[in-house]
């Protein structure tokens, strides 16, 4: 009955079982937050830290995060690494291919504003937020696995507060 504890519900015992009442919003948000499948999208150095986070010591899976190789199965895109001007249209395309609801975490200085490549670089996109909308920013160059995980937990909190009506308008 883990779900019952985590989602505000009304329960009442009736003959032959229990009556459970809750809002659809709660159930959907719970499901979305706890199984965020991320797209395996690593372009540069941050991707190595993303790999480490997914590997033995840090074990990303325990947050319910499993990598997917195709955008069509992914809920989340973790932009691990520099996005160059040549890559930017491809990133947009990948984002467009993801099914809604979809979330974006900008990992590392590069994706926030160009990071170490802000000055004197002719080919780096200065921040991905003018290509795709970003939900969470994780600073660092590269961010440690711990801060990456913290960012993901923040995203889960954001998801838990979503309203169904947010999606209707879109």
């Amino acid at each position, binding site marked *: 009955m883990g779900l019952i504890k985590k989602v505000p519900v009304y329960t009442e015992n009736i003959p032959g079982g229990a009556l459970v009442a809750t809002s659809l919003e709660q159930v959907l948000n719970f499901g979305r937050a706890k199984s965020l499948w991320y797209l395996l999208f690593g372009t540069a150095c941050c991707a190595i830290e993303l790999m480490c986070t997914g590997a033995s010591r840090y074990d990303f899976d325990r947050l319910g995060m499993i990598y997917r190789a195709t955008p069509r199965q992914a809920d989340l895109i973790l932009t691990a690494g520099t996005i160059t*001007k*040549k890559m930017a249209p491809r990133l947009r395309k990948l984002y467009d291919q993801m099914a809604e609801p979809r979330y974006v975490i900008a990992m590392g200085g590069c994706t926030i504003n160009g990071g170490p490549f*802000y*000055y*004197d670089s*002719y*080919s780096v996109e*200065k921040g991905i937020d003018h290509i795709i909308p970003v939900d969470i920013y994780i600073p660092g160059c590269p961010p440690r696995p711990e801060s990456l995980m913290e960012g993901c937990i923040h995203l889960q909190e954001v998801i838990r507060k979503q309203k169904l009506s947010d999606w209707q308008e879109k």
Partner: protein
Amino acid sequence: MTRDELKAYIESNFVGRMTLLESGKVEPMYEIKADDLIEVATKLRDDLELKFDFLCNMGGVDTRERLEVIYNIASTSKLHRLDFKVILGYDSPAVESICPVWPGANWYEREMYELYGIDILNHNDLRPLLLPEDWDQGHPMRKDWDAPDFVRMPEL
């Protein structure tokens, strides 16, 4: 060959074709004339004493006064190494492609062509390598290059 032996060997065998430059104080740096490049390079590769079979690196340099193409070559059997360069002016710089001698030069030349605007003669494939397909802002590695969204680091 040790470095001094190599220097002496080149001096006696490439008279007038490879001139020692002043910039190569630490490691000898030679200049080769652009129209003599392929012949000298072939000789460097095929000479039984030299056997320079490995192109380590090549690339353009913009010194603010002229353009240069540097070549770093090595020998995997004789274990020595050599640097040389071709000096070019700013108007219509061009060098012969060195792919027939060292095929590994292919991508280096493509890179040079787009980043420095140094034309490569007789190269079979000069598609852009690193820059986006729709790049129209010129040759970004030139020192005087500028673009609207290019931010220079402020002097500290």
